């Protein structure tokens, strides 16, 4: 009898967790749909959009650039070390280019921006929620979804492809610097190999991934912050959830998008 009760309790706990997960997913999807709808229906706030583009895009350049630079350099060393076991050192430029553009550039850019911007959006909107600033917007005849959420979601979706392009270029440059300076590959050969092996499809997939990741970061950050409760603790929780959820969703979306591009 005791074992039966424990088993029922265990199954009930799993059921509760599954229902909570479904409810949270549903709430996030509805929130994302509302954000998109508000982004296209007037009144629009171009000033807010410009401000968010600068905050999300321009101010993320240093962290994205440095991450890409060191990752590109490390990747060149790893491929050289691995390739030398099969006398395949010459593949360093092409594999660095493909690896960075198709995979590491967008993913690392997404994860770094999720940490920097996703957390910042959640904390900002969360503190606005608990200090009644979001309620104040309503009393000033301003829809918070239009004024706060839509510009951030649009800015995230537009800024991330540009950041991804920068990340790709700097990542390849990191590989180039290590390849030519440390591994003795001639600069001309390196550039030629990079260009020869990169296709338009690689670049398109990279930019599409960037746009999807930007949308995820902004929607998750806004959703967590907008629905934040319980004072400072609630804001801290919203910030943490925004980074964790966005990071997991980025990695999951990356796999799905790679499957899509892999099969085409």
């Amino acid at each position, binding site marked *: 009898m005791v074992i039966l009760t424990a088993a029922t309790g265990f199954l009930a706990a799993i059921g509760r967790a599954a229902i909570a997960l479904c409810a949270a997913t549903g709430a996030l999807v509805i929130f994302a749909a509302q954000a998109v709808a508000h982004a296209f229906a007037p009144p629009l706030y171009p000033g807010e959009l410009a401000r968010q583009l600068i905050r999300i895009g321009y101010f993320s350049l240093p962290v994205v650039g440095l991450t890409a630079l060191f990752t590109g350099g490390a990747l060149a060393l790893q491929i050289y070390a691995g390739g030398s076991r099969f006398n395949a050192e010459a593949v360093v430029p092409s594999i660095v280019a493909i690896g960075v553009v198709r995979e590491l550039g967008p993913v690392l850019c997404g994860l770094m921006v999720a940490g920097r911007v996703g957390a910042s959006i959640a904390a900002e909107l969360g503190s606005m929620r608990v200090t009644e600033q979001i309620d*104040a917007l309503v009393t000033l005849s301003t829809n918070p979804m239009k004024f706060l959420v839509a510009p951030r979601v649009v800015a995230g979706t537009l800024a991330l492809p540009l950041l991804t392009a920068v990340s790709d270029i700097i990542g390849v440059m990191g590989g180039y610097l290590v390849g030519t300076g440390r591994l003795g590959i001639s600069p001309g050969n390196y550039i030629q190999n990079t260009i020869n092996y990169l296709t338009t499809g690689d670049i398109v997939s990279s930019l599409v991934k960037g746009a999807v990741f930007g949308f995820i970061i902004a929607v998750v950050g806004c959703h967590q912050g907008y629905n934040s409760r319980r004072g400072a603790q609630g804001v801290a929780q919203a910030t943490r959830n925004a980074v964790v959820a966005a990071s997991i969703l980025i990695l999951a979306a990356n796999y799905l998008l790679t499957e899509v591009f892999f099969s085409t």
Partner: protein
Amino acid sequence: MTTARISLRGVTKAFGAKRVLRGVDLDIQPGESCVIIGGSGTGKSVMLKCIIGLVRHDGGQILIDGQPMDARRREAFLRHFGMLFQGGALFDSLTVWENVAFRFLRGAERLPRARARALAVEKLARVGLDAATADLYPAELSGGMQKRVGLARAIATDPQVIFFDEPTTGLDPIMADVINRLIREIVVEMGATAMTITHDMTSVRRIADRVAMLHDGVIQWTGPVDEIDRTDNPYVHQFVNGLPEGPIATLR
């Protein structure tokens, strides 16, 4: 008989098992300053938020000028509405004047920036703040100054209806009196309908034309402000005199 500016008819609201409003009935006449009193956690703020649509009520009706409040009427109502929040709720990324002129910087009431700033400075002067305050950020102001800025923002467009949520909470008695006087002056001067929620009896006596006592989710008593000391309603008597004994449980 004139139609009430705001009417609540059997308004109910529950959060889970907790029934906060159990059937609130209240009429606020045009140009009247009505103060809602009641202990902490009795649903005063929830009632206020139900009226402006920040919280969706479960049952009953909210009427504006005798018409049921729907999305379109709420939008129209909010265009001529101002509210002073308990903590000020100033936008900390904007300067003081941008807070006050928020409606004038975007949307349908948009004005040139210089004109919007001039109007903001004018409203700041009305609440006793000089032009030097205009370019500061809210975090650089004291609590009393933040309340004044909140008040200037609430009256920026000369609204027909103004709500005050605990306007003197957290202020010293002198600053609280300054805010109370300002509220009264502004409401009389503008002829606005005002609704204030507070448990500060000094504010009640200074601001109110009429008082309503909310307890156990219903309006227990309503009457002119000068009757609050004479009424034999046990709830009002206990609350006004701050007595531990009476129908209001002291342990909540």
